[in-house]
């Protein structure tokens, strides 16, 4: 797999008149797994879509190897940059092999006749995602986890050096989340595919990412290795959440333990003594102001 430089330069983007990304500049580390994190509505999905050319920036430029992607013909770009959207649609009655085969479109000619290589690539993508047995099944009768693997296989069949994924684990049980993330890591380790994804789960992000980008209100507020980015200060800043950071005992990556209002008494902490002992009802109905008058 080739290495590429892929960067956003001073990108402003949004929908209609609403600006979601506010002058974002970043460079995606080649052949690594990057994860974009941030609170709901911070623009992380917009950033991913803008990077993957689904949204045209209002100003600024996305550069692939120094060339603006808007100047690259779509099919040619689709051979280098792939995207798995958050909720692609399963056409009625389509089989697994045919859906995975759709990923070959940018490599095929006008008439779309399958070459020997098309078959081999599709077979390999299905093997990597462990869905060879499902090849001739209908996608609409599969479970959520199987379906997600089919979509991943389609993205794989596209054979791009850079792959964007918009929340590839949403709606999946924890077992399948781990399975998908493991498979994507295999892909990165085996072929050096550059992976950029949006994930909701910060702890899984910290575990699987080589590099992280943190967004707040459309601005890039931090980037770097998980151990550098995931701090209680940054989590407070980005998510507005009080938390403690511990070491993930399995992966040794940083792991966020949220505090919340009801459980802070568990561990003695510097400033939580008062709040920690308040009864839940009191805390809920009479927050910080004049606790005596409420009851």
């Amino acid at each position, binding site marked *: 797999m080739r290495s590429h430089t892929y960067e956003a330069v001073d990108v402003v983007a949004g929908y209609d008149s609403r600006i979601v990304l506010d002058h974002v500049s970043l460079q995606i580390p080649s052949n690594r797994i990057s994860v974009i994190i941030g609170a709901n509505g911070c623009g992380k999905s917009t950033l991913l879509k803008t990077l993957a050319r*689904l949204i045209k920036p209002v100003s600024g430029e996305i550069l692939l190897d120094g060339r603006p992607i808007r100047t690259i013909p779509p099919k040619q770009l689709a051979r280098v940059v792939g995207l798995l*959207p958050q909720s692609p*649609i399963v056409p009625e*009655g389509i089989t697994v092999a045919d859906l995975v085969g759709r990923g070959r*479109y940018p490599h095929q000619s006008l008439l779309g006749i399958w070459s020997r290589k098309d078959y081999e690539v599709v*077979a390999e993508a*299905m093997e990597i995602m462990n869905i060879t047995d499902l090849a*001739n099944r209908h996608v609409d009768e599969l479970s959520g986890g199987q379906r997600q693997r089919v979509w991943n296989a389609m993205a794989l069949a596209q054979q791009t050096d850079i792959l964007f994924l918009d929340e590839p684990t949403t709606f999946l049980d924890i077992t399948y989340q781990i399975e998908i993330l493991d498979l994507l890591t295999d892909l990165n380790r085996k072929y050096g595919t550059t992976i950029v994804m949006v994930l909701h789960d910060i702890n899984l992000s910290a575990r699987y990412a080589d590099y992280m980008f943190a967004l707040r209100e459309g601005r890039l507020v931090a980037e770097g290795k998980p151990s550098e980015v995931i701090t209680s200060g940054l989590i407070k800043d980005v998510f507005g959440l009080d938390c403690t950071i511990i070491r993930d005992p399995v992966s040794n990556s940083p792991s966020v333990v949220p505090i919340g209002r009801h459980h802070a008494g568990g561990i003695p902490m510097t400033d939580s003594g008062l709040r920690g002992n308040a009864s839940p009802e009191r805390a809920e109905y009479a927050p910080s102001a004049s606790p005596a008058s409420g009851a």
Partner: protein
Amino acid sequence: MNTTAVEIIRKGRARRRRRWMAVTLVLAVLALALCAAMLLLGNTIYPVRVVAAVLMGEEIKGASFAINTVRLPRMLAGLFAGFAFGVSGYVFQTILRNPLANPNVIGITAGSSAAAVFCIIVLQTSKAVTSAASVVAGLLTVLVIYGLARGKTFSVGRLVLVGIGIQAMCNSIITYLMMIGKEHNLPAAVRWLTGSLNGVKMEELSVLMAACLILMPFVCLLGRQLQLLELGEQAASALGVRTDFARVFLMASSVVLAAIATAVTGPIAAVAFLAGPIAVRLAGTGASNIIPAGLVGAVLVLAADLAGQFAFQVKFPAGIITAILGAPYLLYLLVKMNRKGAF
């Protein structure tokens, strides 16, 4: 290790393609057989040899008139209009991802009909002007509906609902015009209500045939992009499809085909609506179903016309027969969509 997987995929694909080919071939043969029946059957049943001779240009008394001026235009109108309805319905349903989205519901046919009836009853224009007006009105109706349904983001549901509203409005105009119309104009106007192949003249067909023959190769060529658009806007553009271009071109072609076909035959009910789902059910997903849908449309119109002419003691226009087929399917679809919570 890979060879077995490749074999499994190859076999499955070959099987689906064979099914698609077989179904398409059978549909084509069926359409041709119905075309032949259209030429052979009528008040007088001519033997094949006579029909062939007439088509080759031989002058045979009685037969030449019946075949060349009555049966051949009727057959060609059924074939091409049916094909056009089928293709446009399938493209609409696929792009808008809604089985209810078709030229009838979107209001093209109602707009065309209202304009045509207005021309016939109020302006008393010639047939050519009426046809032209109905095509233009059909296209304008689409623009109006699209403009009203646009809002901040595009929504298929809103498009369908606005379409139904516009359709009701056009139908009320038609009803009003029929009430005030002079009696001798009514027969010509009635065909715009039901759709029929009665009295189609050869010279009316040239535009429809030309439109089909010119547009179809491009529409078929975009069939693969249509298959990718089925995955959703984002997935399609991530695969390198110029989604805006493909969508606009396919929609525009379908609108033109439907409007021109309506100008020739009137709104033959439910053909655009039925053809796609029937074609998909029969041919599977082995390849793009644009052509099978067109063939199903042609078969439906031709069969409905034959049934209307010969199956009952009274002659019915083709549109009545297709409406009888379409209504139960519409109900079935509404119930099914309701269960799925699509509304």
